[in-house]
């Protein structure tokens, strides 16, 4: 397990046990899981009788296909299962009536469905969703990596365009770990943890909840509660999207891809310290990953990995021009191809 390996590598043993302000990580995880499962069961119970909806599938060679699916139970993945195995394994995201829809979210009305893959003519949205999912996976691995007496606070992962070369996950570690610097073996063990997740092929289950339920889920984390409020304010519907992968519940700014098995090459490349913030020492974990359908030659992969080790400066929309440091890979936001 990645937890055991990282714990063996962390040589710090403090005599005094840190006063646990919050309960141990396992309990927190179980509590979040329980709330999530309860809310999911409640939402499923809203459709006691099977009602049918008509889903028209769009795509190359599929125009005019009409599927009769169940309201509140059928997901775009089940629609793909009615088509071919190629659609099941390759679709990462769905477009329902022009809106991005996670593959495991149930359909509620008759609609038109398009299954998106990584090899479409315009996979920009899929690429962004994939980058977000990889950042989420990195956050999950970081949270599980440390011993129970060290708190790990996952900050909101910044929206990074794909051309910057790496996805990042901001994290604020326990104050005891302020002087800890990660070694190469730490990064490798984190990578191994992520590869285990990929091997397990866990689906990202989406759930749209009202802010009060989300606040209950994240009752142990002040930062997450603020984030929930922020996201609820931004969303016109007032709801918040939660995703569960295995036993880890997370909050996301946009849709994630279907499952962890879609990634094939994954590497955690760096863990930079950004400086003191309101929640402690901010650290930025960076990584690079490629999906199963787009494999890279090992030479190309090595170059991409080397680039991802450099600190990624997230272009902020408030600043006029982002400062370009000599060893940062900052590109103007205009380079993202839309």
């Amino acid at each position: 397990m990645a937890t055991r390996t990282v714990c063996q590598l962390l040589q710090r043993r403090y005599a005094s046990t840190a006063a646990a302000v919050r309960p141990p990580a396992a309990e927190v995880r179980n509590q979040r899981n329980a709330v999530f499962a309860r809310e999911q069961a409640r939402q499923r119970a809203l459709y006691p009788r099977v009602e049918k909806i008509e889903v028209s599938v769009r795509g190359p060679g599929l125009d005019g296909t009409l599927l009769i699916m169940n309201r509140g139970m059928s997901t775009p993945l089940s629609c793909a299962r009615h088509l071919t195995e190629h659609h099941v394994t390759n679709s990462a995201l769905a477009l329902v009536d022009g809106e991005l829809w996670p593959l495991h979210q149930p359909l509620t009305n008759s609609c038109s469905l398009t299954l998106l893959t990584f090899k479409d003519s315009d996979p920009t949205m899929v690429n962004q969703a994939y980058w977000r999912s990889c950042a989420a996976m990195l956050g999950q691995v970081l949270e599980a990596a440390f011993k129970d007496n060290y708190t790990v606070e996952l900050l909101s992962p910044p929206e990074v365009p794909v051309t910057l070369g790496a996805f990042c996950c901001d994290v604020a570690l326990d104050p005891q770990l302020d002087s800890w610097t990660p070694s190469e073996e730490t990064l490798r063990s984190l990578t191994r943890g992520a590869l285990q997740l990929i091997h397990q092929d866990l689906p990202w289950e989406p759930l749209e909840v009202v802010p009060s339920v989300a606040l209950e889920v994240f009752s142990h984390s002040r930062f997450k509660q603020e984030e929930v409020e922020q996201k609820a304010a931004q969303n016109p519907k007032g709801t918040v999207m939660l995703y569960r992968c295995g036993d880890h519940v997370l909050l996301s700014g946009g849709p994630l891809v279907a499952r962890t098995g879609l990634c094939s090459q994954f590497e955690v490349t760096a863990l930079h310290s950004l400086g003191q913030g309101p929640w402690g020492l901010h650290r930025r974990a960076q990584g690079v990953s490629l999906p199963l359908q787009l494999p890279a030659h090992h030479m190309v992969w090595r170059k991409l990995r080397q680039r991802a080790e450099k600190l990624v400066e997230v272009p902020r929309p408030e600043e006029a021009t982002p400062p370009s440091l000599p060893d940062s890979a900052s590109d103007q936001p205009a380079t993202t191809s839309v």
Partner: protein
Amino acid sequence: MRIAREQGSSPDRGYKPRILVKSCHLQDHTATMRSLVFVLLIGAACESLADKMRLTLQMLISHGRVARKMGMGPQSRINMLRNILTGLVRHERIETTQARADEVRFYAEKLVDYAKKGDTDEKAMKMASFWLTEKDLVPKLFKVLAPRFESHPNGYTRMARIPCTQNLDRAKMAVLEYKGNPFPPIYPTKKQNELTLINQLLKGYREERAQLFAAKS
């Protein structure tokens, strides 16, 4: 893909119609041998023939002879090739049998070499007017084809073998074209999608490399 068939306008077409089962692009040597043996047998009686040519065994065996025979003799062959070449200059891409296309290729390239000399050159003009049976193609050769291949030292034509399904005699067909023609390519290249994840990552990588390079210099 517009592929034009060869059209001949010279009186001596030089090739047999395709309805015949025997493919007419390669001479049938058994017929030649039989006729020569017949001649030899009669040769004893026809002494005049023996006076004109030496009847040797080498004539019957064609080991190592690479020159093709087409049509009804050397003159017929040249006329046939002239027709095909005219069709090629007019349409810039034609479909014929593989052997004819191979033969015409040599003459097509030599014609362009002559055309490169310019239309003021007497020899070039003579060649062009001999080889192109339709005289409205002579200005096209000098004004269009010669400037197009100015930068090419050689290799003005491309030949591609194609499967033969339409012919009754199943003759092996080929497509011959002058390079730089306006038609879609015979071998279409698959375009890589720029927007896939790996191409976007590589694009960012290349831009960063270019920036560093520019900053260094």
